[in-house]
């Protein structure tokens, strides 16, 4: 599983990455994390606000930090 956090390094982006890592660890999932900070790469996903969470190349959320439940659901393929 490939999890990408899109964001230019704002505090919220780091919090989202931390949260996603915690949840992945709790669910005992093996995931590769990538923090995309380059603006052109972020724009390739056509999000309009950061931080955005991308799981297996699908944008799941943008502009907010989703709740633990939401992230867990996405990680489990929901």
């Amino acid at each position, binding site marked *: 599983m490939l999890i990408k956090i899109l*964001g*230019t*390094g*704002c505090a*919220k982006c780091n919090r989202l990455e931390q949260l996603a890592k915690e949840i992945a660890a709790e669910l005992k999932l093996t995931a590769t994390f990538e923090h995309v900070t380059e*603006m*052109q790469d*972020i*724009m390739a996903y*056509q*999000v*309009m*606000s*950061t931080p955005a969470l991308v799981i297996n190349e699908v*944008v799941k*959320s*943008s*502009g*907010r930090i989703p*709740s633990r439940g939401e992230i867990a659901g996405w990680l489990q393929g929901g």
Partner: protein
Amino acid sequence: MNPNLTAASERSKLIQWLVGIAVAASIWLFAYNQLTAFADWVISLLGLSRQTRTGEALHFFFYDSPKVVLLLTGIVFIMGVIQTFFSPERTRAMLSGKREGVGNVLAASLGIVTPFCSCSAVPLFIGFLSAGVPLGVTFSFLISAPMVNEVALVLLFGMFGWKVAALYLGLGLLVAIVAGMVIGKLKMERFLEDWVQKILGGQTAEHHGEQLTWVARFEAGVDHVKEIVGKVWPYILAGIALGAGIHGYVPEDFMASFMGKDVWWAVPAAVLLGVPMYTNAAGVIPIVEALIGKGAALGTVLAFMMSVIALSAPEMIILRKALKPTLIATFAGVVAIGILLVGYVFNWLL
């Protein structure tokens, strides 16, 4: 999970929230009506009288601080909930295909309610353009969003009354609308960076906004309060303390000599001074409080405040990734002239 069970627990959660909000609102109203009594009580507890200079200054502090913090908490919560209805995607959909003029007015107004952080300025900017929102309309949004925000308005209302807050709101919108229209008229699309032009030439995917429940909206409101009030309260206390402190210790017309109405260069100086300064609305309030309290002209001070918030070096560095220097300079120049005019008109009218 059983879907009926989820719906039931979702409903009981919503009821809990509604009850909680009703209780919080009653406490809020009660506290707001007790502000003077509270300040009187603190002063008498300290064994001071309002007749003395120290007593009066402390009374001012203990009246104003809870008042502003209460106002801010209430409004920021409401704004946090309102913002969940205006995702950037939705705002973009409302703006795409709008003509210049109508589009500028709408963009500036939506700038108040759409959540915005300067770190997202570039994705937002490109997202708007790629959906067919004209460049000038996009700039109206980009100018209004940071400048006309609920924190600035609440603080101005709490400290200087509704007239100053309303003037700031009206003139801030006016600057955003007119500056965006001017930039639109100048036809500067070719001053976007090449990679941006390439994206604009391509396809745009439909990104559908997520549907939020009311519980999620209320949670967003609380998060907004934690984030904003948690960040700005030290500035507010500093501002009020400064206001209380200089109450009697600096001559009343100290600032009037060089920031008063009759000093023609005061407004441009205030705007120039504001550009390198980067702080949010709360950070600038202590300075504004001190200046107005000591006889600086209101137009000059509002121009300073707008310049600090709307024109900041870090935001221009972020925008530089998508805009060529000519366009950045035009943006800064047009906004600065707008603010300048606001300052002069204000000083002249009042």
